[in-house]
């Protein structure tokens, strides 16, 4: 708990000082090409030329200041992040849920008979998926299933979250969103499940060596029961914590895949911010992603303590 807070404090401090190292004239950049009141510019310059310590204290008082505007969109950054949060949660939530179910299932089948045909096939393919840039997989899926290459008709939309003009609050609108969700979600599921399957497999293999399994077999339990009742529940623990621990890796996938599919979430917002570069927006996004990952790590730790009595002592 304390560690999480220290990490968080460092993120907040780092976030402040790193961006002060930027060379150049941020206000000139901000004012370029717009009708800015010269007096307002003088005011801005004065704020920027205040001593670093004073600026730092102002920042510390409220790192989530709602009056900070994006330089590119001229809107409060935290408001924009709030808007973009839901599409990302929908995409990542669905992808992580499906990937963990499929990944754990593959891991169980492969890890219960290591070296078998299923294991060799699945470990080989998960290794290949693991070596793949996720945005490239997304681009290939787009070319095959949306752009009409290879004589396959374009079955899915090339991007976005819904067809313009469709009311997303109606049942038809939900179906439309679902239809747009298929390709980006498939991309992420394929990439994430490789990780989950590998961990589930190796923790099940570790579990197979334990004595309590021999005992369960000696009791006369069938193989399937030994697996379902004894081995899998114990092997699940490291895998479930990993799903929370891997959120940093999940974020990477979200940024590039949302960019490829123009999915209007935080990932695409990151891409738009760095193409600017829109410094205030980038700063806020970095803070938001870091906090999300730190909280996920904390949850993973608490889960471990809750489910594994051995670490409690």
């Amino acid at each position: 708990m304390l560690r999480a807070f220290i990490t968080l404090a460092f993120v907040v401090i780092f976030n402040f000082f790193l961006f002060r190292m930027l060379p150049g004239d941020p206000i000139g950049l901000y004012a370029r090409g717009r009708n800015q009141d010269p007096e307002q510019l003088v005011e801005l310059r004065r704020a920027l030329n205040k001593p670093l310590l004073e600026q730092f204290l102002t920042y510390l008082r409220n790192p989530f200041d709602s009056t900070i505007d994006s330089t590119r969109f001229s809107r409060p950054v935290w408001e924009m992040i709030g808007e973009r949060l839901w599409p990302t949660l929908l995409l990542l939530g669905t992808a992580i849920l499906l990937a963990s179910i499929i990944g754990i299932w593959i891991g169980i089948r492969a890890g219960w008979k290591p070296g078998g045909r299923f294991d060799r096939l699945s470990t080989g393919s998960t290794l290949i998926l693991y070596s793949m840039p996720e945005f490239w997989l997304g681009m290939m899926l787009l070319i095959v299933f949306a752009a009409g290459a290879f004589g396959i008709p374009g079955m899915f939309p090339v991007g976005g979250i819904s067809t313009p003009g469709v009311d997303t609050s109606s049942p038809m609108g939900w179906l439309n969103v679902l239809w747009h969700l298929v390709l980006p979600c498939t991309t992420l599921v394929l990439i994430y499940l490789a990780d989950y399957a590998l961990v589930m497999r190796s923790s099940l293999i570790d579990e197979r060596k334990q004595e309590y399994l021999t005992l369960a077999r000696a009791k006369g339990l069938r193989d399937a029961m030994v697996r379902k009742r004894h081995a899998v529940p114990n092997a699940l623990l490291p895998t479930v914590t990993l799903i929370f621990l891997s959120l940093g890796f999940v974020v990477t996938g979200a940024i590039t895949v949302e960019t490829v599919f123009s999915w209007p979430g935080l990932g695409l917002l990151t891409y738009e911010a760095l193409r600017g570069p829109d410094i205030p927006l980038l700063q806020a996004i970095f803070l938001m992603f870091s906090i999300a990952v730190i909280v996920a790590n904390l949850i993973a730790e608490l889960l471990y303590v809750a489910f594994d009595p051995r670490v409690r002592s």
Partner: protein
Amino acid sequence: MSISAQRRRRGLAQFANSFRRDRTGMTGLVILAIFIATAILAPILIPDEALDVTKADGGRFESPSFSYPLGTDEVGRSILLMLAWGTRISLTVGLAATLISMVIGTTFGIMAGHFRGVGSQALVGVTDWFLVIPFLPLAIVLATVLGPSTLNLIIVIGITSWAGTARLIRAQTLSIEGRPYLERSKALGAGNWYQMSRHVLPNVFPLVLANTTLTVAIVILSETTLSFLGLGDPGAPSWGALLDRAFSSGAVSRGAWWYVLPPGICVVLVVLAFTLVGRAMERIVDPRRAS
């Protein structure tokens, strides 16, 4: 020849022998050899005009043909030649960034394992911080501050990817610290530097090498991602930058698969090859961990 040099040579020969018997490791090594040869020969085989936008002689987005085996890009350059040139950039960035990451990771790991007290705890704290912070947002922020260039890309990847190595090396150092020969060396008056450089480093080195190979794989993936986001040198056609250009020129909606497929296949092959070689090395150096 001194006894230690003889022993080292024998160890190396043993390692080479075990590696040669590892089929997946050798497969990876052969793939790598092909890519490295391409990277080295690229400037000899490829005329300078091939990459020049103004001298491009093909049509826009031409599909593969006899004169352009992998088709052309949005200005009519041969994708095959750009791909070969990209091998050079992707491998250079991958290896250079890994070198930075390994030097930082090994130094931090050995020092955190060797020393006791507040300093060591601070090192562990910094390592943990880098392990927790999500890689891509951190790299984006650093790359934006430093500006887009190949050198900056190397630096950014190097300083964001060493934490895993540091943790591994620290654990290994802690197990070495308890061994009698280090105690003997301390009793004979060896200083910290001597202990770390003469006793700890040679012992963790095989593990460092195996880990390096695995790190290169991750680093090349990172390079591809960052270049795709436009954070590399815009003039250097690395595989990631090729994918970036394919994406922003609309190759995807045109269905120009020959522009998108090859760079990705190259990334997968190289990353897979480094992973296979690294895992084979790990199996030989540290059989307990690799299982």
